């Protein structure tokens, strides 16, 4: 087994790095920069049962060490995705984590049912935490009972393992994690974006047409690391960690906090080669650190171990 290889429910990955949902489309664009076979997995853009037009523009705003987005789950609908987007990804030997969203439980169930049957979808990611849509999303993400109910319903119809993507905009994320674990979730993705806002002082109005948006990028990394640190000590399902990852060092930090794989979002916008670069650097760094497989590092910050690393 290579240093980088990891295995999570449904996802046999040659390395632990995948682009994060919504930051990589369905892969076509970044395939012009590098061979997608390089990636550990691909988390594709959220699918809803129906076509969604998303929010008006401007949809992004820059902040210090971060960005706000309010795309609003724009997507052509799950059937179109299954028919026209996913097949293109079949030529790569890379498992797909299919992100789904909806307004109602039925929406999620419908999307899950249809997308989990795609031959290259290896797992589903329930986006119960999108801060940029008026209904659904965020409620499921802040009420443990609702999140658990949703997880159960989706588990019933999904043909592949189910990850629940948690929102950081809650008082107690551990409670949310425990609830969806008990309801049968196979893994967790965390964190989605923090709700934020930027105001253009020249106009006096919020920069984003949607007013609020989701904060991502290096600014949120400390919050992500803290939440993964807390949750990983309380659940036994694996965590896909994300939130501000830009470097191989960041990946190690997320593993030490408690992640078993990671996703890279905003960094793709700074550098289209972010993912392959991180993967190459990670291999080097693990070699230097004398780590034979990266999964040894999962939870290192809270597990006791014989000797320190250096």
């Amino acid at each position, binding site marked *: 087994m290579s240093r980088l290889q990891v295995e999570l429910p449904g996802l046999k990955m040659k390395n632990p790095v995948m682009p994060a949902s919504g930051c990589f489309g369905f892969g076509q664009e970044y395939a012009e*920069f590098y061979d997608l076979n390089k990636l550990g997995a691909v988390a594709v*853009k959220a699918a809803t049962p129906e076509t969604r037009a*998303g929010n008006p523009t401007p949809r*992004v705003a820059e902040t210090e060490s971060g*960005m706000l*987005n309010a795309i609003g789950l*724009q997507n052509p609908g799950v059937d179109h995705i299954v028919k026209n987007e996913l097949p293109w990804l079949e030529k790569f030997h890379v498992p797909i984590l299919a992100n789904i969203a909806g307004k109602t439980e039925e929406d999620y169930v419908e999307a899950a049912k249809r997308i989990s049957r795609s031959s290259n979808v290896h797992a589903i990611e329930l986006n119960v935490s999108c801060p940029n849509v008026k209904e659904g999303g965020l409620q499921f993400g802040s009420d443990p009972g609702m999140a658990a109910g949703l997880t159960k319903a989706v588990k019933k119809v999904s043909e592949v393992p189910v990850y629940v993507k948690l929102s950081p905009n809650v008082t107690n994320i551990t409670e949310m994690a425990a609830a969806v674990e008990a309801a049968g979730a196979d893994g967790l993705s965390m964190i989605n974006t923090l709700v934020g806002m930027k105001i253009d002082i020249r106009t006096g109005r919020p920069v984003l047409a949607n007013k609020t948006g989701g904060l991502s990028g290096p600014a949120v990394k400390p919050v992500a690391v803290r939440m993964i640190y807390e949750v990983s000590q309380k659940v036994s399902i694996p965590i896909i960690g994300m939130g501000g990852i830009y470097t191989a060092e960041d990946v190690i930090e997320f593993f030490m906090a408690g992640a078993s794989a990671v996703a890279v979002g905003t960094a793709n916008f700074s550098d*289209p*080669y972010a993912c392959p670069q991180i993967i190459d650097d990670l291999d080097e760094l693990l070699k230097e650190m004398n780590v034979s497989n990266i999964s040894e590092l999962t939870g290192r910050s809270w597990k006791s171990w014989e000797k320190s690393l250096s």
Partner: protein
Amino acid sequence: MNKENLTVLSQEKLTSKIFKMKLKGASVKTMLTPGQFVHLKVGERHPVLRRPISICSVEADILTIVYRVEGQGTKLLNQKAAGETVDTLGPLGQGFPLTEESTALLIGGGVGIPPLLYLAEQLYRRGTKVKVILGYRKKEEIFLEEEFQKYGEVIVTTEDGSKGVKGFVTDAIAEAGAYDVFYTCGPKPMLRAVETASSKKGYISLEERMGCGVGACLACVCDKQKPFEGKAYVKACRDGPVFEAGEVIV
């Protein structure tokens, strides 16, 4: 699509806020189409997002851009000295299609002016007659006027009337006389006004806030006037920034 650290050759101040910058590198040779843009990373770690800037002109492996210092990003760009490098992604997007018509009217306002220079040059080389309207706020803010004069007749408008026609670019369209096709780039209100003022075929270049710049994040979508083959939107960064007038809702 290329990513390369282009080397800064020079920075030249054109007006109090507008600068001309020359950058050199192998990938510049692929920057063939006017209206395309480059996406610049202006700092190592900060800011997080790249900055879209139009290709203003290209000579061999030397790219010229003309930019206005607005906020953090363009300020950092402005601090780059000769010899330093700028991480440049490009050329990106779809540029201006070169017309077969005999007379083209180019209408630019503010920082929408730079991409039209490369267009003017290419149209001129093909033998198209080039007419140009350049809109500024006032005399002191005029830039690139002389460069355009190499390729055709130039009418300047200023909002305060301190030079040329007083008013907006649309106030000079009549004066420009007959033309077969128009090309325009500038702030949205100007684009709308030009679309309304002209009944000719034309192309507009849109400014939208961008995330990825390559078509993956859906930050920069514009609604189409009429959905085509089920698609109701286009991405400014990939399907644009240039669209046929009337194709998208400005």
